[in-house]
């Protein structure tokens, strides 16, 4: 089912959940292929199901039915612990609100996913330094998140997302909390990750300007691809 060119293969994916007495269909029989090395912009209005789709691809949420293969692995079949390990090894996350741990420095935040690997301390430090260097924040490695600007925080989050060298990076409205200048920096950084490091990037956004940085844009409307 998984073609070597497609890092993500989705077939008839449906997600329903209950909101009180009402059953909401967030995704309705969505089928989608995402090629390796693509920078996919997932667009749509609020409640269209784009974040739900992103969460299922990233192994944070489970579908009600259908299949979601990422690098040949049917994510829905993994149990809780397997999913945690799988996410750590295969997915890099970037959030709208950066989600850095406030009590840890930039370097310690970037190091967090590496604590779950077999790397020793010096190997971890080396990779953290390389990741921070890649986002241009080597000189801010000992700063706490509150000592950084929003744009810098998001670049630290990008460094954290790529430090484990995952094949797939998922970004949920990564520029939603940034001014236009910082947003430009972050999108350029994501673009260069695809171009220079060959990463596949899936970005949820409702901003057409941000979506224009992607190599492909798809739209979701009421849980269906339009």
């Amino acid at each position, binding site marked *: 089912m998984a073609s070597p060119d497609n890092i993500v293969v989705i077939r008839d994916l449906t997600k329903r959940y209950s909101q009180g007495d009402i059953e909401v269909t967030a995704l309705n029989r969505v089928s989608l292929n995402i090629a390796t090395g693509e920078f996919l912009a997932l667009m749509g209005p609020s409640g269209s199901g784009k974040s739900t789709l992103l969460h299922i691809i990233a192994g944070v949420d489970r579908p009600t039915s259908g299949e979601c293969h990422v690098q040949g692995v049917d994510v829905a079949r993994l149990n809780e612990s397997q999913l945690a390990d799988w996410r*750590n090894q295969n997915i890099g996350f970037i959030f709208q609100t950066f*989600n850095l741990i406030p009590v840890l420095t930039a370097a310690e935040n970037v190091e967090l996913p590496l*604590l*779950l690997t077999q790397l020793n301390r010096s190997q971890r430090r080396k990779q953290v330094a390389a990741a921070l260097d890649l986002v241009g924040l080597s000189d801010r490695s000992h700063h706490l998140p509150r000592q950084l600007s929003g744009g810098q925080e998001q670049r630290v989050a990008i460094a954290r997302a790529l430090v484990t060298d995952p094949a797939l990076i998922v970004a949920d409205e990564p520029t939603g909390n940034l001014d236009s200048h910082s947003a430009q920096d972050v999108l350029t950084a994501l673009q260069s990750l695809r171009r220079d490091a060959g990463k596949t990037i899936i970005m949820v956004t409702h901003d057409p300007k941000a979506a224009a940085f992607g190599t492909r844009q798809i739209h979701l409307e009421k849980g269906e691809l339009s």
Partner: protein
Amino acid sequence: MALPITYNLRNVIIRWRSTLATIIGIALVVAVFVLVQALAVGLEKSASNTGDPRNVMIVRKGSTAESSSMVSLEQFQTLHYWPEIARDAAGKPIVSADVLTLISQPRIDGKGEANVSVRGLTAMGMELRPQVTLVSGRWFAPGKREVAVSSRLARRFASFHIGDQFRTAGNTFTVVGEFDGGNTAFDSEVWMDADEARAIFDRQSYSSVLVRAVSPAAALAISAKIDTDKRLPLRADSEVKYYSEQTSTALPIKILGNFLATAMSIGAVFAAMNTMYASVGARTREIGTLRVLGFRRRTILAGFILEGALLAAIGGVLGCLLSLPLHGYSTGTMSFNTFSETVFQFRITPWLACKGILFAITVGILGSLLPAIRAARLPVIASLKSV
């Protein structure tokens, strides 16, 4: 892999306003726990310090204390010249037949009277107790109604300073010396001449006999001989063992201490729980992020329990520090063995401090358990959406 400990430590520090109250609460509980236990340790230490391993204590079979024991003159004469008993340079057996009695004296603070143990002993009895040293004045002279008082008792009773006089059993006694019992049970005694004590307190017999054995094997032989001799309804034990068994006074203090600590720790557990619940509530999104990054539920659980334990350990250390100024402070209570004033010191030993900190950590772990389970069970997506 666990979360880095710096993460937990900094989270405790960064929320210092909310954690401070909990830390202080735990510190107070630990301080009370350590101090009450320090009283019990002080009492036990005073008893266990007392004996000399070379000495054998002989009391009436079945008696629980010297004050309720009786050794007749005939019994004393029977065992006086046993070959197992060591002799001094002049060839005299190193034996002391003591009289122990209780007198009631007014306290120095004017808060009524208390019983005091008076030991009548001979010069040989003093030789058998080398840990007792004269610190001021002189030793009593036989027949002159003179006594020497322990310095610690002198600080607690109205008429026990050198030159003071007090009346008991129809006689007026003069305090002529103060001694230091060397942190032993003798710190709770008044000493006078044995024969004078027998006469004044109208005793036909002695309370106990203390002998110096020629060797450890001889000590055992004395014990065995007394056990098998039908004429001697007595019991002989090493002096060390005898005094170490006189620690039942510490038991009610220990029980009270444990009860107080348990009652207070319930409050401390809830305080820790409250703090940790608040912490989990404030860090919901952080927890969701850690889960997304690949940290398992059990790591989150362990992280929050560790944080609670860390918080409590800080309280524990603070509690020990709070209690430390009372280390060595002298106090007294009525002994349930002798029914007289027993003077002893608060003793905060390293092991007691460790117990205090372990106690605090237990409080922290119990208090953080439910919040930690809640943190570990938070649904990832809902956590990420938390503001």
